[in-house]
């Protein structure tokens, strides 16, 4: 079975630009979560979606937004990029209330 997939793998953007990251969950998983991992730190929770509804939001500014589609895939959008947004963005999928399975991540570099 395919695991969680994310695209793109790497991305370089300029300050002030917008970025969209994509995630496809494991088949049958209806919950998708997004995390930001800065170098040297553990992943930090950004959003969780279940059945296309937002179930949780971490301590991130409104520049960060996400959505989940009817096929349970998800997008994370970040507007007005800052240098500090450079990080590995991880997507995880799960059956609700169960362990989360992580994708390989998207490495975002903001210059």
């Amino acid at each position, binding site marked *: 079975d395919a695991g969680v997939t994310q695209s793109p793998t790497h991305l370089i953007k300029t300050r002030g630009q917008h970025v969209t990251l994509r995630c496809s969950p494991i088949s049958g998983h209806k*919950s998708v*979560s997004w*995390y930001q991992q800065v170098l*040297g*730190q*553990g*992943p*930090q*929770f950004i959003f*969780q979606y*279940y059945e296309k509804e937002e*179930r*949780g939001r*971490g301590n991130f500014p409104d520049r960060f937004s996400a959505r989940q589609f009817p096929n349970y895939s998800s997008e994370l959008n970040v507007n007005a990029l800052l240098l500090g947004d450079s990080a590995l963005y*991880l997507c*995880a999928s*799960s059956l*609700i*209330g169960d*362990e*989360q*399975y*992580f*994708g*390989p*991540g998207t490495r975002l570099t903001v210059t």
Partner: protein
Amino acid sequence: AQSVSQHNHHVILSEAASLELGCNYSYGGTVNLFWYVQYPGQHLQLLLKYFSGDPLVKGIKGFEAEFIKSKFSFNLRKPSVQWSDTAEYFCAVSGGSQGNLIFGKGTKLSVKP
């Protein structure tokens, strides 16, 4: 505030040495506890999890962890490490019906052959 603390930033061991990585959490209410591992160049993988029941949990590759509620701890152990255990290890907690994970900063384990 909810938080997870991992005591060791970098641990260096020789093969066959025993391993114990500390993890303490601060979280009100029922908790679910996890250890994830990230091998070089790979994505996060679940080592083991605790939801309820026996506080001694066995995971993959010979790892185990013990939940001690009175100490708010969930330490990871392995009796004899191998070079292939070189990786970064993350302790995480989630609460009750909430799905979001709160991670510690991670412990980098280097095993010398």
